């Protein structure tokens, strides 16, 4: 039996997917979820083979929920997003269904998924989805991290600075710091360049937190943040800073 989970904040939208799935006797809907939190729980509990996932949902969106999974299952996105927004990832998702979608279109998506499922190798495709999903304008206002068993939503305005730490990025806020399994380059792309600036290979700061810039040794500078931290500035970082602060 193939296990599926439907995650959508609109009950009728879930009903429709369930109805379309009724003709597939080999697929069983293990859970229906209202939001990403319920979704995470259900995914952990049932280890599904297939997700039907909405993008715009309460608190954390579909992309953010997937980011929190170590081994995300195959995903078919169901969304009312316009084509422009969806084009960013259309080559990489298993498939996406634009609401309202027909049974024929739904069947096509399942066929596509079954072809991939037969090879038992859905993970590379999904990795790519996640990389391109980061271009989505939806993500810029907050970052979702996992801390133990709880999920923390950090509004980007709360971030003081980001620091590279091996394979992780350390996100510093006034309330503490969290680790996210991403690269600095990823955040450089994802965060608004008008609000965040990469001043060093290992540091990216929130521009509104900068209070002072002092010279430090030859060719380098040091930034003082409102919260008291000192951040090193590289030569190329200095050029970017001059541009933005002038």
């Amino acid at each position, binding site marked *: 039996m193939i296990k599926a989970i439907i995650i959508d904040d*609109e009950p009728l939208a879930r009903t429709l997917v369930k*109805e379309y799935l009724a003709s597939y006797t080999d697929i069983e809907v293990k859970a229906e979820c209202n939001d990403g939190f319920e979704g995470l729980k259900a995914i952990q509990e049932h280890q599904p083979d297939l997700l039907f996932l909405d993008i715009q949902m309460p*608190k954390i969106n579909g992309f953010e929920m997937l980011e929190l999974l170590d081994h995300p299952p195959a995903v078919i996105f169901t969304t009312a997003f316009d084509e422009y927004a969806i084009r960013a990832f259309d080559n990489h998702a298993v498939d996406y269904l634009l*609401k309202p979608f027909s049974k024929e279109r739904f069947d096509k998506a399942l066929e596509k998924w079954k072809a991939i499922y037969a090879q038992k190798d859905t993970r590379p495709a999904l990795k790519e989805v996640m990389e391109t999903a980061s271009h989505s304008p939806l993500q810029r*206002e907050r970052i979702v991290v996992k801390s133990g068993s709880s999920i923390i939503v950090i509004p980007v305005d709360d971030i003081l600075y980001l620091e590279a730490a091996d394979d992780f990025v350390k996100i510093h806020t006034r309330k503490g710091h969290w680790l996210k399994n991403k690269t600095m380059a990823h955040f450089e792309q994802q965060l608004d360049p008008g609000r965040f600036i990469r001043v060093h290979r290992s540091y990216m700061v929130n521009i509104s937190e900068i209070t002072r810039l002092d010279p430090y040794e030859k060719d380098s500078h040091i930034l003082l943040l409102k919260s008291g931290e000192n951040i090193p500035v590289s030569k190329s970082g200095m050029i970017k800073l001059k541009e933005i602060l002038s």
Partner: protein
Amino acid sequence: MTVNFLSIYKKSRVPSWILGVWILWTGLYTWVATEMGFDLRVALIDSLISNILLAAASFLLINILKYYTPGKGRYINLVALTIAITLLWYVSSRAIMLYVLKTEIGAGPFWGKDFPVRLAIAFLVLGCVALVYVLVGTMEDREIQIHRKSDAEKLAREAELFRLQQQLQPHFLFNSLNSISALVGSDPTQARKMIQQLSEFLRGTLKKDDQQLISLEDELHQLRLYLDIEKIRFGHRLQTEIDISESAKSATIPALLLQPIVENAIKFGLYDTIGQVLIRIKATRENNQLQVTVSNPFDPETASPTRGTGFGLASVQRRLYLLFGRNDIVQTFARENQFVTTIIIPQHD
């Protein structure tokens, strides 16, 4: 001869008052000439020749100015042009005078002692013609420019208002259609009802764009259609509370203003919290002002209401600015876990 003059005059399409002025001027000229001692015949011939040619010179001057109007600060060119035409006039009028009157008294030498006076008079007349023509032309230009500018502004304003009103979220439409698609299978009666609600809502948004102010009661009817659809979409998660004072019901409000505000509140509430969302809409009327407040819950831990309150409110603010010329009509504030949007609509009755 007379007929010829008349037909020339008619063809030239010169206003009759100018002809009147010309006749008066010619008469005056004749009278002055007789006073100076010329006999009437000579004075009349002198006057007619001088003034017909002066009219022709004016005509020439105006036609030159039609193709060349001196720019600002280039009035020296205008004076030079006038002097040149004045000299041309003098030479031709004297030549004709000498030809017609031959050696009679009054024909005078070509450059007689009356030469400066004649020249001065012609220069003044032609100068006046040139000046009046240029001034009137400038004023007309400016008027046309002002008209064009205000027309353009009005058009832009109307287009912008129209666009702001039409900003219906495609998300809303597509998700509603998706819900209907689901209902068709599970509850056809309800599906039919939702199609009817959605149609009535859409018709309302199309119908109301020409009449700018409507009663709050009509606006609420439209809003309820919208809320009913949203409640079907989100099920029990979405609840609303509408509290309108009796006096506020008849107050007027720009059509389709509340829907984007409520839409913003619903989105903010639904996507920023988990669980039930209560949207409160309250309207009161005091001191010739209608005040409407819309509140939604939010999570102060994760949301920053100052940023990202949505495009919805920006367009509402812009629209109210265009309508009332005021920027203080929409106000928002956050209190504990409630985000409140207040609008104040001036009432003029």
